[in-house]
């Protein structure tokens, strides 16, 4: 889609206006398109769906998945739930934070990687699990985490050049 953010969002809103209970569908579509839900477009969504701004804001803030600020080029989700804990995700989590130098919900200074927690990826048979984009990785330890990150970084360089 081209055009300003407002235009993009207005098009999404008009597409789903007649859908019953459309707000989550619209928010997903906006985040899919823009990568996040900019606070300044909340009024556009609210007006288009006949909701108050507070209602829209309340929904955005309720769900962990929706973000109000852009993420880095890649988002890495680390599973923090029990099956992964049983296989060492606590150490993995620590390693990830230390090696990237960021906490959960933060992005590396070079804008490459955002780190997010997740509670089960359904990959519990091969814990610990992480998700990068739509790819899920199994049996992740510090070493394989580092090589996954290294691959993402070379990918980024290739894209740039």
């Amino acid at each position, binding site marked *: 889609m081209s055009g300003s953010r407002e235009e993009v969002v207005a098009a999404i809103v008009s597409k789903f206006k007649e859908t*019953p*209970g*459309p*707000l*989550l*569908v*619209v*928010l*997903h579509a906006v985040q899919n398109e823009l990568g996040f839900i900019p606070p300044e477009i909340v009024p556009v969504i609210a007006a288009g769906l006949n909701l108050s701004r507070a*209602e829209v804001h*309340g*929904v955005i803030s*309720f*769900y*962990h*998945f*929706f973000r109000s600020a852009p993420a880095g080029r890649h988002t890495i989700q680390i599973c923090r*739930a*029990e*099956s*992964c*804990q*049983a*296989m060492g995700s*606590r150490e993995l989590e620590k390693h990830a934070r230390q090696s990237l130098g960021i906490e959960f919900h933060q992005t590396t200074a070079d804008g490459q990687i955002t780190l997010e927690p*997740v*509670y*089960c*990826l*359904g*990959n*519990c*048979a*091969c*814990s610990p*699990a992480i*998700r990068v984009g*739509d*790819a*899920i*990785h*199994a*049996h992740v330890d510090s070493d394989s985490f580092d090589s996954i990150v290294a691959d993402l970084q070379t990918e980024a360089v290739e894209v740039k050049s």
Partner: protein
Amino acid sequence: MITRSKVFVPRDTTACSLGADKVAAALQRHFRVNDIAVDVVRNGSRGLYWLEPLIEIETDKGRQAFGPVYPHDLEEFIGARCWEGNTDFSKHLGLTEEIPFLQKQTRVTFARVGVIDPLSISEYKQHAGFAGLEKALAMSSQDIVSELKQSGLRGRGGAAFPAGIKWQTVLDSESAQKYIVCNADEGDSGTYSDRMLMESDPFCLIEGMLIAGLAVNADQGFIYLRDEYPLAHNVLTEALVRAREGNYLGNNIQGSDKSFDIEIRLGAGAYICGEETSMLESLEGKRGEVRPKPPLPAVKGLFGKPTVINNVISLASVPTIINQGAACYESYGVNSSRGTLPFQLSGNIKQTGLVELPFGASLRDLLYDFGEGSRSGKPLRAVQVGGPLGAYLPESQWNTPLDYEAFSAIGAMLGHGGIVAFDESVDMREQARFSMEFCALESCGKCTPCRIGSVRGVEVIDRIKNGENTDENKELLKELCATMVAGSLCAMGGLTPYPVLSALEHFAEDFEQGK
């Protein structure tokens, strides 16, 4: 007609997380470049996850299995020309059906899973697919509901409420508009049976929802799918397209006067939205705050209309029940736990995967006969059954039969069938702390004991950790748990104390001063 040989390479989240996509692509390339007449079929997974990527070859004796075949094993696989029926490859496992982990199971709901191409309607039909629908189309609504009641099927999402009774309530509710909602939020850690079923046999879920629609006179279904399942989303989306093309969805289904359609709605990372009334709010585009009951969703559900909400596995069990009859399904199981449950072996287990069994086996059978003990090689110490709200069980309780009542008798629950094993390195105080932390993170915020109690719980456990007034703080933790159990509107706040208190009771040494 020359039948081309087939190589099966699963397309399933876990298989792909271990490299199955790379394996499939490399094999396809090899066959194409060398002009070899072999098709690579992307089946689902058999659920023998420690053997994934598990490749199969069709032979006249049955399917030969090889696994785990990682991308770096392909050279050997190709060198041995396994697709010609040769089995001279170090990863050869014998006939798939004879692998003990699979052979010892009773695959009823998962009969097709891993066997067929998930997106092929013709293969689905060759394996009894849509046979239940065909029968249901010739039955009255009441007869379908009565059959389901007789089967003894209880909800597989966690609460184990009899499915037939729920359907009866919806059937009896007068309304021009009713809905079928499939709960595909599968938020419980340690579980993946919904994901597997959706990725490996999506038409089975569609058929179950269709039959539910016929049973209660609903013409619209929703699948509330968690956002954490991108592959399931992809497969289901395609399956819906093909079902419409095949007139299994839409108007005048298979020449009848019945209509039904299904829409997928994505969740947004909130565990509480797996709770049925929170899910309804979410489907309506609102914050996922739990609704008080009554009214039951069966009476006043989605958009205020009578609504069946069932878990993926509950709905996927329906086609077989209608096709083979309630008596057949009911013949499996023990006491008031009838039929089969797909258990999921997770965590620190050597042979992890999906084990569908009639109710009644013991946890120990699963951990050792199927799981073969820990993956780390160290002794197992604690097992959490039934997701993050389930109790931690010490070894002395592992002989408990896996049935709903036997589990509730020891203050535990089977829930959605997830089994997470921990070896002796586990720190049970940390596990109890996590239960409270998770509740604090995921609480919908409606009741104080859940919202605030969980935050207090984390603080109290931290004080125990720091050796501050350990005994008093342990008492405080118990009181806090009692308040949460008594004062919470839903099972999030009401059951979080179970893992916490079970840890405190059975693994008291981990809460001792100075530990």
